[in-house]
């Protein structure tokens, strides 16, 4: 009775062990899949970095343009102020010259 039980247990363990083991073909397939996913991930990472770099560059450009526009606006306002001041000074000098 004991022997029978032992034989059955050994067979069960062996069966279970044989079921868990993969063939070398399965292993290669998994490896290939991992490689593909890795490559995809790498590509996605690179794409994301490129996109971020492009976005950063665009933002920088936009910021620069905005600063330049602001500077141009300031310069135009300054020119206008100077021109207005000049006109006012000229008018004041004229008014003074009109006194008796």
């Amino acid at each position, binding site marked *: 009775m004991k022997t029978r039980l032992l034989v059955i247990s050994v067979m069960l363990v062996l069966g279970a062990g044989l079921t868990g083991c993969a063939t070398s073909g399965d292993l290669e397939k998994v490896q290939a899949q991992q490689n593909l996913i890795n490559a995809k991930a790498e590509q996605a990472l690179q794409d994301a970095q490129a996109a971020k770099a492009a976005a950063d560059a665009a933002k920088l450009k936009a910021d620069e343009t905005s600063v330049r526009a602001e500077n141009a606006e300031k310069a135009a306002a300054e020119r206008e102020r100077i021109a207005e001041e*000049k006109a006012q000074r000229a008018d004041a000098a*004229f008014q003074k010259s*009109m*006194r008796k």
Partner: protein
Amino acid sequence: MYRTADLPLLANWRCFAALCTALVALNGCAAMRTVQEPGHPESEIKRNTFPVARGEDVVGRLAVIRLEEGDTLPDIARHFGLGVNAISAANPGVDLWVPEAGKRVTLPLRYILPDAPRKGIVINQATMRLFQFKGDGPSLVVSTYPVGVGTEERPTPMGQTRVARKAARPTWHVPASIAEDHRKKGDILPAKVPPGPENPLGEYALYLSKTGYLIHGTNKPASIGLRATNGCMRLYPENIEMLYRDTPVNTPVLIVNQPYLIGQRDGVLYLEAHTPFEGSGTGELEKIYAKLRSIEKQSAHTLDWKKVQEVQAEARGIPVPIFEMGQGGSQEDVKPLNVEHPDALYGRPALPELKLEAWYVLAADVREEIDARRLAAIINHQGPPIPARVLSKSSGYRVVAGPFNDVSAAREAARRLKIDLDIDGIVIEPVKQIENRKEVMGVEAKSFGNHHNKPNKKEELI
């Protein structure tokens, strides 16, 4: 017999669409005709004299004119009997001396009569305008002229006075205080100035009973509409001549200061606001608000107070309709008249041609053309006028005054530029004289073997 329409053609939808487009276009043209009214000849524009209907306070009509190249606002103002103050206030932001050609400017030729008895002469200092009333009742007529008044330091006195005497070609007896002011600037005035171009009284004077104060002409017409006198009231030469002829001795003269005016015409209430003189704004505003509140109460209608505040803040010196008091009010004459530009502007300073044998004064060397043109215009409008023009050079512009017949005239112009405009002018010899001297210098240089004498660069270019 003729056909009015070809029906088979209308059946074609393309023809129908074309017809519709043509009709719409023609309609548009008609609308344009209403907007762009034909210009009125400037001779049709009333400048000075207006009938005054009983119970009405507003005279004249606004006009607009398109500026031409080389116009200045003071020239336009004088041609249409306006002061510099009036044309500037009516056209804020327009350069007085170098306005943009093609720009339409308003001629504020509509006035609210001052709140004073309509008798004799009334001068409103705040608006810088004189009103002379003639006749009475239904035949009441007002003649109005722009004036120059006293400065902040030497203001024109207010109140009632009268014309004590009149003089044509008056002599100016220089008051000690004015002589002292001029002496401080390095300008020594004689005790009296005889009639002529140097006389600031011009050709006619009305002496007021308030001693020392006159209504007179001027040798500085561009000062009309400015606070530039020592308390007298100046008029354009052409206006003082009319006033002088129309004003008998003993005519009452009332001088008021009313920056805010209200008046009615054809059942419409108008408000005219000017920038008040320092210290007089608040009191005058309170008076006008009290009057408006009283009108509002009497009429049992609400006034547009926001509009009142806008008119007051803008201070454009133009009567603005603020309230319809009765029915049947005509607003047709509220629309400004489109005036054609005259061929020549009256009183515009003449610019003599350049002459090689004449003397000149270099007034300025500037980078921007607009600055040069402005300065040349200001010099041209001095009194008596000093001709000045802009000459371009490779890296900027020069303002050159002249031509002058001799060195003393050029030196006198340079002296006036210094005293009146603080300009350090450089007297330039005639080109011919320079060339002659260069020839002599060349001979001398050859004789002495000296080749270091270089002619003045500025002189060379003129």
